[in-house]
């Protein structure tokens, strides 16, 4: 069960995984995610479903190895299986014909941006995609995005690929050139989503962000994923992950996502030490 059918490295520390999960492949709607545990000692990791192949019974994930559990996932090879995988979780994205929709994806947020963009395209919207990456080596999913975008802006912070600068500049550029934007969808790092939200608020463009708080169960039982939206507590895993950007309290969410930073690093450090000691002992 949950076998890795395909694994490709698409950027430093970023992998594209195709995993067998027939029930989920059949059910998936854009905007939803899964929770998986690479090993049966791992944490439960929430990951966006980029796309699915219902015939083959597979789902595609884009994972960035940033901590222990995502790293464990990325060390699994084709043919191996993840210990646990459940989904599809969260509410699907609202898909309607809005007109012109600007999709902004940053980093691995591009995976959710792609899924939503694809559905919106199928619903007859005109899609302008802005994809941002640190530099050329981190550019991901360009071919996938090109296929579903009427216009695609690939931006890198240092200009080493596509146009130079942050996604926010290019969104401003769209407004400046008189583009009538009916809706904006943003997925990526929280600071990016907040900046996008600030810009679109000025233009009164309805804007949806896909939030990515730290989760535990992913099914509404712990409240760890809570966020303040419109002054009310919501549980992102069951009430979201998409919310009206202009209502989201990004500050408290950013703090929450950093709450374990020191502790995580200690744990990782301890693990690395252990691994090193083991390696040394092994050599002897």
């Amino acid at each position, binding site marked *: 069960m949950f076998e890795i059918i395909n694994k490709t490295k698409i950027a430093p520390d970023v992998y594209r995984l195709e995993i067998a999960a027939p029930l989920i492949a059949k059910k998936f709607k854009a905007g939803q995610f899964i929770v998986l545990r690479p090993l049966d000692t791992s944490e439960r990791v929430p990951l966006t479903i980029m796309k699915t192949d219902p015939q083959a019974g597979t789902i595609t994930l884009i994972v960035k190895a940033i901590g222990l559990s995502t790293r464990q996932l990325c060390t699994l090879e084709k043919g191996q299986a993840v210990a646990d995988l459940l989904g*599809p979780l969260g509410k699907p994205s609202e898909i309607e014909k809005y007109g012109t929709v600007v999709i902004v994806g940053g980093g691995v947020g591009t995976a959710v941006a792609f899924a939503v963009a694809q559905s919106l395209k199928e619903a007859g919207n005109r899609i302008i995609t802005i994809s941002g990456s640190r530099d050329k080596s981190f550019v991901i999913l360009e071919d996938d995005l090109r296929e579903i975008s009427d216009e695609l802006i690939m931006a890198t912070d240092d200009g080493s690929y596509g146009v130079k600068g942050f996604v926010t500049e290019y969104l401003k550029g769209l407004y400046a050139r008189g583009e009538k934007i009916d809706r904006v969808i943003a997925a990526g790092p929280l600071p990016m989503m907040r900046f996008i939200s600030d810009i679109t608020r000025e233009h009164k463009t309805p804007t949806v962000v896909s939030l990515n708080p730290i989760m535990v169960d992913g*099914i*509404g*039982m712990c409240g*760890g994923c809570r*966020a303040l939206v419109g002054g009310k507590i919501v549980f992102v895993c069951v009430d979201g992950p998409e919310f009206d950007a202009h209502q989201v309290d990004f*500050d408290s969410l950013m703090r*929450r996502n950093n709450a*374990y930073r020191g502790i995580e690093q200690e*744990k990782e450090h301890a693990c690395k030490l252990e691994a090193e000691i083991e390696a040394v002992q092994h050599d002897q």
Partner: protein
Amino acid sequence: MTNNPLPLKERMQIQRHSMPAQLPQERVENFNEVNQGFSLELAREEAQRCLQCKDAPCSQGCPVHVHIPDFIDQILADNMLGAADAILQDNLLPAVCGRVCPQEKFCESQCILGKKGQSVAIGSLERFTADSTAADRAARPQGELPAPTGKKVALIGSGPSSLACAGDLIRFGHAVTVYEALHAFGGVLIYGIPEFRLPKSIVAYEVDVLRRLGVKFEKNVVIGKTLTLNELFDDQGYDAVFIGAGAGLPNFLGIPGEELIGIYSSNELLTRVNLMKAYQKEAITPIFDFKDKVVAVFGAGNTALDSARTALRLGAKDVHIIYRRSEEEMPARHEEVEHAKEEGVQFTFLAAPLEFLDNGEGWLKGVRLQRMQLGEPDASGRRRPLPVEGSEFTLDLDLAVIAIGNGSNPLLRDAPELQFTRRGTLEVNPQSLQTAKQGVYAGGDIVTGGATVISAMGAGRQAAQSIHDYLSQL
């Protein structure tokens, strides 16, 4: 019954035996079980206290009417398997119930000896019976199951309600599959109640017993998401469904500052510690650093006490339970309150939080509280707490845990064919436990709101009978 060697009078002179336990100062340093269980000698002596009342008031006090005098008599006959079977007739999980039932509200509250002093330690005896026969029960051949009926039943959730329901349905000859959203089976027994009260090996043992009887357990399936209720019938070919989805949605206080870092819901704390094993050094799930911290827990049920005692074991310096009513109204199991006091948990009664205070960087630094006084009884029959004007005060804190109860699990709310009450619990026919949809039954916390293990199990069995009746007519 005649297995008691002692005349009535002598029986009544024996004092109730208390449960051997780890010493408070030792046990706060570990997550091992606090209670150590009776020895055979203690169990025998305690069993001798039972008067074998004809009308067995204890049995009446038990939500599933365990034949208490019978099982106690079998202990005296040295027939431990017989004692276990006497319990198992009515209660599938004696090792669990012996540990976590609020006996002081149920069986023991009705015991004749309780009226004159101290009731028989029924819970401890139940636990002893279950533990001392665990190996033998696992080794003995399973009784013959009836010929398969060819009917399939899906159970949603693997908490005590579903486990009890599964146990009966499989013995009626139906094919039974339990679907659980999490990666481990047992519901609250596995993710909520801590190891130091209910070792997880016991829950695993009980799940294994059912598995050997032929119950199928499927983890990582969220009904309503992975499969819908209708698909269970139409695509998966089930003939009936039982919903035991529990009350797992944590409530928050709804006061300012609740989004500060350093505030957990009790569910998050307990899930990190129990399900994700954050109490083990090698576990990789992070948890706030409790070492030498001041922690407040809001609430006074089992969940609050479990959170407070977990905080102590994680190294907290001071742990406060803050409750807006008085000690008498505490809904927690009596023994847990006693244990918590012995371990040094501090109780502040008649105080309610108004606001959490920010340290300037988004972390919790304290709570502003208000004194309360008790007024007239409210709908729950308990005296209503009323604020005392001008009594605000502040408590400095490092961490807080909110344990003010759970709402019903939200995952099935979207199912159009079900009906929910305003509180979010599932609407069922009180006799049959059938929901608004034919062939779909429900029981446990999803129907009652947060209650007890034994009442959830009772509902599971009641539903199993209804499902069996329903399937027999198909």
